[in-house]
């Protein structure tokens, strides 16, 4: 885009900086240690995570998730610090997820962050979960100024950066795409190990027919709750066969694999469309996909086709960084900290609602 080139407010550090990041806004409990070196490079020293996996057919509830985080926090943090080959005293700051997310799980992680902060006399940095995803995606892929599609179990947003703010161009009007997929996985009793979305993706590969579903893009936004209702209704359809590997293509039947396939194709097309609208709006040619649903290779493939048609490219990370993790919190936190931001203890609360555009992105021009 034309315009005078603004200098980055973030200069190379005069010494190395190290930060610990703690994440627990959903069912993943993560701790990671990141290092910003004098030459301006960024190094992941460790990235440890433990996921609370519920039995098939069940989602995760705040109370049990918080309990899982309380049980695993210390182990995961000690593991991350040991793998990074540092001591807690080496840290410059302790970063934690301030929000958005589930209340009780967020609070459990914040309690640990505050305790460590007081014990070791390290400043706290509260981080926006969405900004964490974006910053880690930028760091890992090297994308310069992409349109960001942030898709996970809790969030679905199309984001573009402008003047120190990650602006939301489009988003879901009701539920997140990952939430839609996860809830459908429960209906057809798919395993939640390693994640329901992964199992839907594998199941979808076996799908042979596309069933009609509503296609609900609303301008720059999408609506997903109606699609969820429709896909669930198919399981009551008289043509639906819950199990049995019937390979008779001539028979008019619908299998779970067909529903998984149809659901993915429909919702992913909608996401590609609203991403394309944002790209057209600002004249960008790069797409960065972040968030747990970003691991989905079919989504990456579909986005890639669209981007190529526009002469652009898609950037995505692997499951270490796509799925909620502590290192992204450390990265976004350390960037803020180096620009002079920290969270005083009295303000180190958590909040379930925290908009991506509420963050002042001081480290970018």
């Amino acid at each position, binding site marked *: 885009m034309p315009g005078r080139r603004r200098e980055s407010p973030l200069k190379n550090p005069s010494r190395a900086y190290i930060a610990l990041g703690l994440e627990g806004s959903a069912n993943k409990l993560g701790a990671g240690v990141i290092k910003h070196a004098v030459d301006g490079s960024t190094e992941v020293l460790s990235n440890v995570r433990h996921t609370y996996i519920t039995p098939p057919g069940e989602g995760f509830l705040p109370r049990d998730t918080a309990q899982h985080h309380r049980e695993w926090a210390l182990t995961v943090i000690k593991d991350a610090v040991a793998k990074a080959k540092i001591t807690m005293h080496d840290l410059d700051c302790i970063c934690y997820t301030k929000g958005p997310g589930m209340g009780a799980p967020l609070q459990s992680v*914040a309690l640990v962050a505050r*305790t460590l902060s007081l*014990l070791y006399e390290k400043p706290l940095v509260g981080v926006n979960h969405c900004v964490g995803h974006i910053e880690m995606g930028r760091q890992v892929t090297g994308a310069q100024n992409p349109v960001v599609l942030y898709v996970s179990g809790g969030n679905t947003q199309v984001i573009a950066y402008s003047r120190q703010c990650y602006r939301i161009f489009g988003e879901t009007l009701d539920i997140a795409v990952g939430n839609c997929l996860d809830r459908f996985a429960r209906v057809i009793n798919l395993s939640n190990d390693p994640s329901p979305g992964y199992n839907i993706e594998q199941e979808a590969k076996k799908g042979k027919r596309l069933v009609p579903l509503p296609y609900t893009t609303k301008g720059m936004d999408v609506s997903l709750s109606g699609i969820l209702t429709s896909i669930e209704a198919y399981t009551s359809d008289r043509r639906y066969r819950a199990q049995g590997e019937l390979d008779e293509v001539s028979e008019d039947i619908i299998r779970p694999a067909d529903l998984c396939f149809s659901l993915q194709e429909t919702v992913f097309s909608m996401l590609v469309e609203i991403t394309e609208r944002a790209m057209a709006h600002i004249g960008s040619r790069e797409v960065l996909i972040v968030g747990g649903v970003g691991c989905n290779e079919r989504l990456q493939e579909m986005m890639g086709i669209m981007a190529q048609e526009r002469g652009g490219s898609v950037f995505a990370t692997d499951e270490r960084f796509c799925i909620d993790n502590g290192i992204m919190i450390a990265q976004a936190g350390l960037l803020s900290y180096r620009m002079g931001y920290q969270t005083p203890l009295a303000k180190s609360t958590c909040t379930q609602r925290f908009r991506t555009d509420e963050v002042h992105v001081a480290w970018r021009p």
Partner: protein
Amino acid sequence: MTDTPWHTVTIRVPFANPKHATIAMQVIDVDPELQREAVKRTLTVDGNDLVASFATSTVRLARLTTNGFLENVDLVARTIGEFGENSERDF
């Protein structure tokens, strides 16, 4: 205080020293109670102990508040137990 009867619970949690008890108090005090009109909380340090007093308007709230507090103080105490000794070395 209004004239509605309050249910009170006092919990005393010992720590290794006053410094740790104070850290626990400061950490837990950051989050306000979810129902501030119905639950009154007071946290103090007495010697090595963290003392928490709650006054709630219903028995159910007394149970929930106590349970929540104990879950949190257990987490903080375990964190101090795990990292506390190490944090004092090297200084």
